[in-house]
């Protein structure tokens, strides 16, 4: 670590290239007229500029290496290109049209176009996902095929990728790994949607990219871009939700001046118990949440520095608690909506601090990420003054990687590590996990070769080691787990309309302390858990095929996959109970097979350009010689959405209307003693209006669960107590943005 810091310091203090700007012009390819308002982005530097009335733009600096550039305008096709910075002027031509399916991705350890990556990655803009009116990040991500969510009421939710969740899914925020006691089904993600710009999802094992635990997939969240150079913006937003009588207030300030950028944001949400379709309320499903975020970045020729801090504090009630001796679903449903703090409750605090440094040379790039995270999880069960569980989790994280680019080849070599400390507070009544430290160390390499314009392949290798050691005399454990991982992918661009991608990847997850050593009540999960110290690491291999067909008016993606999972760790009841709470044991499934299909399609007719239809289908099947299925296996799902937008030139700039329908099949393939779930359908209507008057206004409103369907989601942790999801409800959101040009 010391040498890495010295390295970083040496690079930072090296003589800089003379600062020299780059100017350019954007023209219409047919008419050769200047285009105003084209957004030109350099993703590696996270810099944006906009073309003026003469189609001209300028970057206040240059770069020596070849960098990817994206040019975006609502009336033109997106242009993705790459240019060398050692030129004084640039000229781009855009073609009319608006259909595009390619996005820039960052989650595969490189900034590249989705098409230039053999790893199948789903990319979505958070702003687009928010049109669905979802309550939290996990719900927004369910618009992606193969991605579901696991919830415990409204306040606690996390993503599920192809049936895998919790510790099997690695979540990164701006590259920093989020660690928040993910082993618990009742422990949420701990990240708000405030100031988030995009979400990328890698479905399936990705241990070559992110090491141990990335067995089921990766969620990579990225903050929204800084303000355009020479601009400051202030966003104020207020949302109101009828179902929870709740509101969310947020504030976002961004400024980019010269070579410095800043982003500061904060929000507060307060939601009472949610209303069920029968008019009653889900007892103690209330929550309130504070979110804060601050980023500061500065760049110099060929280098960029970024400091980020994020804070999240959620106080969530834990539904599913009753003193009734004979509990029925109505024991957990009440006539009046509660907002006041009530037991049992969970206090969840996340703090993320990171520093990122990037340095570019001709054909080379160095990237360093240092991070410190802190998660505090406190659960109160029966007593107001004494927490049942209180744990602090400290993570010190680093990643350093070096990239070398040739004309058709690219090599990335990196090291990554994490030191994790889990500490129990002495005041807590119980310790479900002992005090312990975990140390991860990994080394990886990725090699990409473009055989021709049509064929590209990528191969990756990684070796990871994890050490776990408890700091308790009564419960001593010391373990070392190591695993090599491999990924290999091939991409075939048949023609401009058709592309096929084949990817083979492995994953590995060492058993968590909770699985090895748990021996106590876990009230959030309503069970007594007993671990097994002889558990071995889970391993997974996945073969993923993806075929894309893109035309001017539509696209189809067919994505079948097949995964083999060895030593899958699961938990199941052993038939006993302690103090009336059922006892669950951790065990391992020797071998399992998971296969499925993700389909997605998008169509907009030539005769009605503003109409869009998007649909997707997700199917997952799991089988093993020992048992029929694993618990919490997502059911088959079909989602359809029709969007229409109107563009205007007056005060009202744009109106978007969306009608979406989701059909969730029944799930009867369940694990031992798991409750099956019935099929259900949901219809949502959402509308958004953009206005320009002394700033930009965005008004969004909608109705969710239009038919007031009484449904119980298979992945809801409230399924066991017969608690349905929220009933029909309205929401409204108003956002105001003011922009100001500032002197550079």
């Amino acid at each position, binding site marked *: 670590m010391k040498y890495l810091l010295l390295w970083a310091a040496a690079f930072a203090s090296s003589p800089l290239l003379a600062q020299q700007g780059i100017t350019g012009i954007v023209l219409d390819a047919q008419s050769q007229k200047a285009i105003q308002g084209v957004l030109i982005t350099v993703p590696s530097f996270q810099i944006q500029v906009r073309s003026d009335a003469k189609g001209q733009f300028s970057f206040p600096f240059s770069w020596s290496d070849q960098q990817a550039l994206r040019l975006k305008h609502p009336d033109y096709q997106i242009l993705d290109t790459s240019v060398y910075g050692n030129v004084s002027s640039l000229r781009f031509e855009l073609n009319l049209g608006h259909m595009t399916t390619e996005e820039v991705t960052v989650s595969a350890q490189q900034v590249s176009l989705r098409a230039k990556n053999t790893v199948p990655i789903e990319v979505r803009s958070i702003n687009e996902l928010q049109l669905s009116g979802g309550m939290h990040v996990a719900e927004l991500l369910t618009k992606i095929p193969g991605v579901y969510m696991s919830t415990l009421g409204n306040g606690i939710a996390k993503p599920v990728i192809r049936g895998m969740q919790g510790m099997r899914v690695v979540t990164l925020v701006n590259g920093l790994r989020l660690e928040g006691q993910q082993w618990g089904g009742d422990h949420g993600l701990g990240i708000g949607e405030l100031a988030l710009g995009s979400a990328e999802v890698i479905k399936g094992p990705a241990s070559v990219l992110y090491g141990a635990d990335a067995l089921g997939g990766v969620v990579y969240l990225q903050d929204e871009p800084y303000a355009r150079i020479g601009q400051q913006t202030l966003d104020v937003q207020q949302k109101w939700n009828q179902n929870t009588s709740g509101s969310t207030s947020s504030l976002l300030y961004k400024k980019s001046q010269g070579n410095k950028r*800043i982003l500061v944001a*904060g929000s507060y949400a307060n939601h009472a118990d949610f209303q069920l379709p029968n008019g009653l309320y889900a007892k103690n499903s209330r929550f309130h949440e504070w979110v*804060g975020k601050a980023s500061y970045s500065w760049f110099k020729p060929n280098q960029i520095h970024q400091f980020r801090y994020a*804070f999240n504090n959620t106080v969530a009630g834990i539904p599913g608690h009753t003193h009734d001796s004979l509990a029925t679903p109505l024991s957990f449903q009440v006539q009046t909506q509660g907002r006041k703090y009530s*037991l*049992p409750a969970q206090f969840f605090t996340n703090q993320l601090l990171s520093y990122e440094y990037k340095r570019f040379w001709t054909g080379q790039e160095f990237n360093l990420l240092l991070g410190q995270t802190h998660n505090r999880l406190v659960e109160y069960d*029966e007593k107001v003054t004494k927490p049942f569980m209180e744990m602090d989790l400290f993570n010190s994280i680093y990643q350093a990687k070096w990239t070398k680019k040739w004309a058709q080849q690219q090599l990335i070599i990196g090291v990554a590590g994490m030191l994790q400390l889990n500490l129990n507070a002495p005041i807590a009544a119980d310790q479900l996990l002992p005090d312990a430290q975990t140390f991860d160390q990994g080394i990886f390499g990725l090699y990409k070769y473009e055989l021709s314009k049509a064929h590209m392949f990528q191969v990756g290798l990684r070796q990871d080691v994890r050490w776990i050691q408890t700091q308790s005399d009564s419960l001593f454990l010391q373990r070392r787990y190591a695993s090599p991982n491999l990924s290999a992918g091939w991409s075939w661009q048949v023609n401009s309309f058709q592309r096929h991608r084949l990817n083979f990847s492995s994953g590995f997850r060492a058993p968590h302390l909770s699985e090895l050593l748990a021996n106590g009540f876990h009230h959030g999960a309503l069970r007594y858990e007993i671990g097994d110290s002889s558990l071995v690491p889970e391993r997974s291999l996945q073969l993923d095929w993806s075929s894309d067909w893109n035309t001017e008016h539509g696209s189809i993606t067919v994505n079948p996959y097949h995964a083999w999972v060895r030593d899958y760790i699961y938990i199941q009841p052993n038939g006993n109970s302690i103090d009336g709470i059922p006892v669950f044991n951790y065990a391992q499934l020797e071998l399992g097979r998971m296969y499925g299909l993700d389909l997605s399609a998008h169509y907009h007719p030539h005769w009605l350009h503003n109409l869009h239809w998007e649909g997707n289908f997700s199917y997952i099947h799991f089988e093993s010689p020992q048992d029929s299925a694993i618990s919490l296996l997502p059911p088959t799902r079909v989602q359809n959405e029709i969007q229409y937008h109107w563009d205007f030139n007056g005060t009202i700039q744009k109106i978007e209307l969306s009608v979406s329908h989701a059909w969730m099949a029944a799930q009867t393939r369940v694990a031992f003693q798991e409750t099956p779930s019935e099929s259900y359908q949901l219809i949502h209507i959402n509308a958004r209006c953009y206005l320009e008057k002394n700033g930009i206004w965005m008004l969004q409103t909608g109705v969710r669960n239009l038919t007031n369907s009484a449904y119980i989601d298979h992945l809801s942790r409230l399924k066991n107590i017969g608690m349905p999801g929220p009933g029909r409800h309205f929401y409204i959101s108003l956002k105001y943005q003011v922009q100001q040009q500032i002197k550079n």
Partner: protein
Amino acid sequence: MKKLILSVTLLGFLSTSCAKNKCAECHYDGPSGEVEMGTYCGDELHDLEDLGTFTDSLGNSFVVHCGEH
């Protein structure tokens, strides 16, 4: 910038710690239903919850619950 980061951090710690020093209404489950014991605060509340039970004049013990459940 520094002030802002400090303020946000402080706010976070305050919001987690304040909720722990509350007053709460307590009751015990008597033979014929819940019996209210009134509001307890601070150390009194802490001591009552540590004890966990209420013993009546006849020497019968009952489980005490504090706070809204």
